[in-house]
């Protein structure tokens, strides 16, 4: 290769080299100081089993729904007023009026609120479907037990987001559903009455309840969910994605489970198998 450098580089080649330097310099700078570029490269170019299927997109679909909730939630928080006080001009609660204002007067406010309202349901449905997929694939088994637990916690947190967010419009349905919901929490032994008192911020549901739910809905629970999602993704990347268990080419399939091609007349695409060797041995140490 050294011979090519004997020739004087053309102008086009020089320009190209300069351009590469300009692009690469900040990335090299960042990589040298953080290792982030290598991390992203590993994330993007790590291998996943070749037989993964569409059901395995449900997790990232749930993540997308969560991101929609985060973005629309930030926009709503710019206009929503968490106050149960009565507006002296109209005699209506301030929080309820701010919701009506977002829905009726704000440019595309109805869209942002509608996406947040219905995105919540989509998020919950996708989490349940994702959980069903993991169950069907037996993907919660060794060594992914911890990630199952993290996932269940995200589901519980997501439902708590639903419970706290439901009150914020401060309308009749929300108010009375929350009255009963908090009273139900109160029936739990030991912690129940304390929890109900804490959620209400007093004996009765009031403005104190609304600001508490606002804080929980916007800061505490989303913070916990983001932390759990980061842990969830870290474990997914570290442990890898499972093959569908019925796949003939499933990664990690036991050698004796693999039947020879002539025993499987229905199989049109036998696993390529060099004579005398198992396909697993393509990588040394792949098998004990």
């Amino acid at each position, binding site marked *: 290769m050294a011979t090519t450098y004997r020739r004087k580089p053309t102008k086009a080649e020089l320009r190209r080299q300069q351009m590469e330097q300009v692009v690469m310099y900040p990335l090299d700078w960042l990589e040298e100081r953080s290792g982030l570029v290598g991390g992203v490269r590993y994330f*993007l170019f*790590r*291998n*996943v*089993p070749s037989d993964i299927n*569409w059901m395995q*997109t449900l997790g*990232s*679909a749930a993540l*997308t729904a969560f991101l*929609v909730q985060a973005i629309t939630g930030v926009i709503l928080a710019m206009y929503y007023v968490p106050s149960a006080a009565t507006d002296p001009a109209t005699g*209506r*609660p301030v929080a*309820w009026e701010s919701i009506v204002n977002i*829905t009726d007067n704000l440019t595309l406010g109805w*869209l942002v609120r*509608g*996406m947040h*309202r*219905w995105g919540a349901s989509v998020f919950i449905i*996708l989490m349940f479907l994702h959980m069903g997929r993991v*169950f069907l*694939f*037996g993907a919660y*088994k*060794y*060594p992914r037990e911890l990630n199952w*637990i993290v996932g*269940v916690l995200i589901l519980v947190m997501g439902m708590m987001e*639903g419970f706290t967010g439901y009150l914020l*419009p*401060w*309308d*009749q*349905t*929300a*108010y*009375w*559903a929350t*009255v*009963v*919901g908090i*009273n*139900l929490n*109160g*029936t739990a032994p030991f912690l*129940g009455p304390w929890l109900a008192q804490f959620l209400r911020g007093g004996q*009765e549901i009031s403005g104190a309840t609304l600001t508490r739910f606002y804080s929980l809905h916007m800061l505490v629970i989303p913070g916990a969910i983001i932390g759990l999602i980061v842990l969830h993704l870290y474990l997914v990347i570290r442990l890898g*994605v*499972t093959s569908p*268990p019925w796949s003939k080419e499933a*990664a*990690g*399939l*036991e050698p004796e489970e693999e039947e020879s091609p002539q025993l499987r007349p229905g199989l049109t695409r036998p696993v390529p198998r060099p004579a005398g060797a198992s*396909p*697993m041995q393509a*990588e040394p140490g*792949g*098998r004990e």
Partner: protein
Amino acid sequence: MAAIPKEKPSRVDESRAEFARYKADVKARGKPFYPYAMFHDTIMSLVVVCTIVGLAVIWKWSAYGPHHSPIHKGLLGPEVDPPANPGTTSFVPRPDWYFYFLFYLLRIFKWPESVFLGTVGVPTIALVLLLMLPFMDRRRARRPSARPVAMVAAVLTIISMGVLTWKGATANEALASEVVQSVPKWIKDEHLPPAAVPGVNLFARAGCTACHTYDGVGGALLGAPDLTEIANRHLGIATQIKHLNDPSSVTPGSPMPSFSSLGQERLRQLAIFLEASKGTH
């Protein structure tokens, strides 16, 4: 004697070996996440975003006219409900749809003996079982056909959640306008004295039948007891008023909300009516 033949590897060893095989297989025959898996993920994410936008659009554009009107609900319900009013006299507590299964569970257990099971017991047990699943099912088998117990349990769980959600969604709500029509029948069946008439009218309008049943009418929600023969418990008017003001001071842990916003005079009328309800025989 010869030594015992080589011991079968333990389950942990087998699991570790399988995971090592998995890692090696993925390295040798896998494909890179980008662009292959990421392509599918991106398409799915676009579908999700389009679905959410679509729901928001349907929500707005299928509801026409003044959106506070219950008549113009649209396909996905009204955009804005009436503002919260703690002094209201008629309400039906209704959570978001993904809590319907809990909501309906509470109708199955009766107050006060077993309602605790519905509010805390069953949900807590279900959550603990869900969290502990990987530790209860520790076999290595992953094919559904090799896990009949897990598959049957999953199908039963899905069916029961689905049925509870469906029943919760379609549970009949006792609407105040319909309940009021039963008042003359109640007065006749229960032989209510004239002193109880203001109370019975209030009872029909104040939303009590959202949870309680009375002479065959009402919601039976949250394990609320039937009030047809409540007078036979001889609680007394003072206790009834105390209970209406603050239910959990009389029945600890009661999920019933306070009705003190009705005013003490109306609570007295309700108490007189309840103490006159001696049954339909």
